[in-house]
């Protein structure tokens, strides 16, 4: 309890509140603008937060992450183009409701369900994180190795075009993590005689390149796509009767979203789609789905926002990112000198609760932003892409440059962007690569330490029931796509 109070008190400083509010505003703005995404915004923000104290820096990113998921629903409802992938299911009923003259009501339903989902997942976060961390304290290198392998195997089921391509991207990310001087032996690996690579690949320029530059190039081919925009004058909150009717749907979707968020590599998009499907399955008015029914909005919105909170549980308690955005937050934590995992919770619990407080603040801020800024955010969607993306490029250049005041990092960013664009074109996602990059060092370190513990006997790893459990999960996870395919063919 003391840690919770201390964590919250750390936030109650004027500059911290300003930074978190700024994070929320940037997040909603980025989420509302089609093409811009929260991982991209977090990647662009990372170099500038290095100068900040760790708590406001990470709190700002966490707030941005929550807000980005919510912001995506604004464009999904008003222009039928999800500002962020997790809002894809919101458009199915949000846009028809807006089109029939109720954009304010659609935004109100999205806001209230987002806030509810976010808060419910944070309650789970505050309860589950210490429990998970207490369990994780029993983990030794072999258990961490098995857990990281399981997390990497989850890339197979991550949202994207194909499991195979996600796994290849993840493996390439793990390989990139080997660049630099090998910690155990001091041997240079893949440095190609470039001194800048001795410390390994710099996260920031690569992240900015993959997320911002890759998307910029993709956007250049969609400039002529016309969209019909609906202007929202004000947000209309749902009535108490309406809320009573939707209560079960919100609670169910929040539960689904939180659970999916906790699973490594499963993100808000999967949660939103399942939330929508489950809302439809339990609905008494199944036929109205797709025509602008309230359940079709609150189902995915509660699920995608609760998944955002849920994804922070494995990120902070185990050091295993739950999504692309949380992988970036994890990278920022490492840059600030923290070691994510059970030690973080046991040694600096106030830090964890400060992040929790920032996310709670962000969720409550959605209501205020939705009420006061609905009109502004609906106008934001009118910014021409031809002016928006040069601005993003400028932030990308400054972000890459400022991390070490070096133009080499700008070149790295550009190359990463070009690779990211062609990877995306051929179905290889940037998020699995980043998750591989983050988990890569952990996998190798844990593996080396395990081999020392077990005197290079790999089979001895299986003596641990936790290792066996995670390896079994990994096997099930990797074989599921083939198994379901086989069963379908048989049927």
């Amino acid at each position, binding site marked *: 309890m003391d840690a919770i109070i201390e964590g919250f008190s750390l936030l109650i400083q004027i500059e911290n509140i300003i930074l978190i509010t700024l994070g929320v505003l940037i997040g909603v703005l980025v989420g509302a603008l089609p093409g811009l995404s929260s991982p991209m915004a977090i990647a662009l923000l990372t170099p500038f937060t290095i100068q900040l104290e760790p708590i406001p820096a990470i709190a700002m990113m966490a707030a941005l992450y929550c807000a980005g998921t919510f912001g995506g629903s604004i464009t999904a409802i008003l222009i039928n183009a999800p500002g962020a992938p997790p809002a894809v299911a919101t458009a199915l009923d949000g846009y028809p409701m807006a089109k029939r003259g109720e954009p304010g009501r659609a935004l109100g339903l999205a806001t209230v369900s987002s806030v509810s989902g976010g808060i419910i997942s944070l309650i789970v976060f505050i309860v589950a994180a210490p429990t998970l961390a207490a369990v994780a304290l029993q983990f030794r290198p072999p258990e961490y190795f098995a857990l990281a392998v399981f997390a990497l195997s989850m890339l197979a089921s991550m949202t994207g075009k*194909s499991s195979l391509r996600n796994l290849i991207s993840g493996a390439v990310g793990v390989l990139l993590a080997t660049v630099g001087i090998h910690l155990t032996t001091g041997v240079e690996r*893949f440095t190609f005689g470039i001194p800048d690579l001795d410390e390994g690949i710099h996260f920031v320029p690569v992240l900015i390149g993959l997320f911002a530059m890759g998307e910029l*190039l993709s956007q250049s081919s969609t400039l002529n796509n016309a969209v019909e925009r609906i202007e929202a004058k004000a947000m209309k909150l749902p009535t108490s009767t309406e809320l009573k009717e939707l209560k079960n749907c919100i609670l169910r979707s929040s539960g689904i979203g939180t659970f999916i968020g906790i699973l490594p590599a499963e993100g808000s998009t999967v949660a939103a789609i399942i939330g929508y499907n489950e809302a439809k399955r339990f609905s008494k008015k199944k036929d109205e789905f797709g025509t602008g029914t309230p359940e079709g909005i609150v189902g995915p919105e509660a699920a995608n926002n609760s998944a955002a909170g849920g994804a922070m549980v494995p990120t902070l308690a185990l050091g295993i990112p739950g999504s692309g955005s949380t992988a970036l937050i994890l990278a920022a934590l490492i840059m600030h000198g923290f070691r994510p995992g059970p030690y973080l919770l046991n040694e600096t619990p106030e830090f964890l609760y400060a992040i929790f407080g920032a996310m709670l603040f962000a969720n409550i801020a959605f209501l205020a932003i939705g009420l006061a800024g609905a009109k502004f955010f609906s106008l934001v969607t009118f910014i021409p892409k031809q002016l928006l993306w040069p601005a993003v490029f400028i932030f990308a250049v400054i972000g890459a440059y*400022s991390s070490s005041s070096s133009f080499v990092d700008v070149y790295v960013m550009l190359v990463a962007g070009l690779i990211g664009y062609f990877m995306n074109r051929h179905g290889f996602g940037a998020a699995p690569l980043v998750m591989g990059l983050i988990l890569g060092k952990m996998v190798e370190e844990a593996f080396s330490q395990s081999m020392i513990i077990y005197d290079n006997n790999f089979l001895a790893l299986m003596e641990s029931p936790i290792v066996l459990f995670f390896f079994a999960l990994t096997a099930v996870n990797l074989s599921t796509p083939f198994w379901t395919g086989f069963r379908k063919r048989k049927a």
Partner: protein
Amino acid sequence: MDNQNSTAPSTDGSRALGLVHPVDLAVTAIILAGVAYLFYETTQFDEVSPLFAQNIQPAMYPQLLLWIIAGLACFLPFEHLLLAKKGKNIDKDRAESVHPLTKITITFLVVVVLASPYLGMLLTMITICLVMPRLWGYKNLVTILLFAGIFPVVVSLVFSKVLSVYFDSGIFGITL
């Protein structure tokens, strides 16, 4: 003749393909070439005594990863068969060749980034704001001039004065 039929567009806009996807075959070849080169690189890593390396040489782990990547890549040319059964079209984003505007944008970005050490950060930003909207077909010249005049200056002031980011002034020595 069969080959011609196999690449003919089908009614849903996707292409009917044979056992091997030709584009993915090329992607696999690129990945395998990269893997082969990197594998060769790992053979050049220094070796350390087994005692010091705890029996795990520095090259072992990257080599293991390269084997995994190569193994997975070998399935790529056949993956479309599985994806088609799931109703997924892997060719959706690459059905058309790279858009001419994307090629022009890539060229511009490469040129402006390579020129940035000489131009300095402020002039680089102004160039981006002036050229990119025009390249992307934005016609309102007044808006572009206002954008190029105000945005880089505001960004420079915020980052250099508030966030203390050092901006290179380039060979022209232009900075705020």
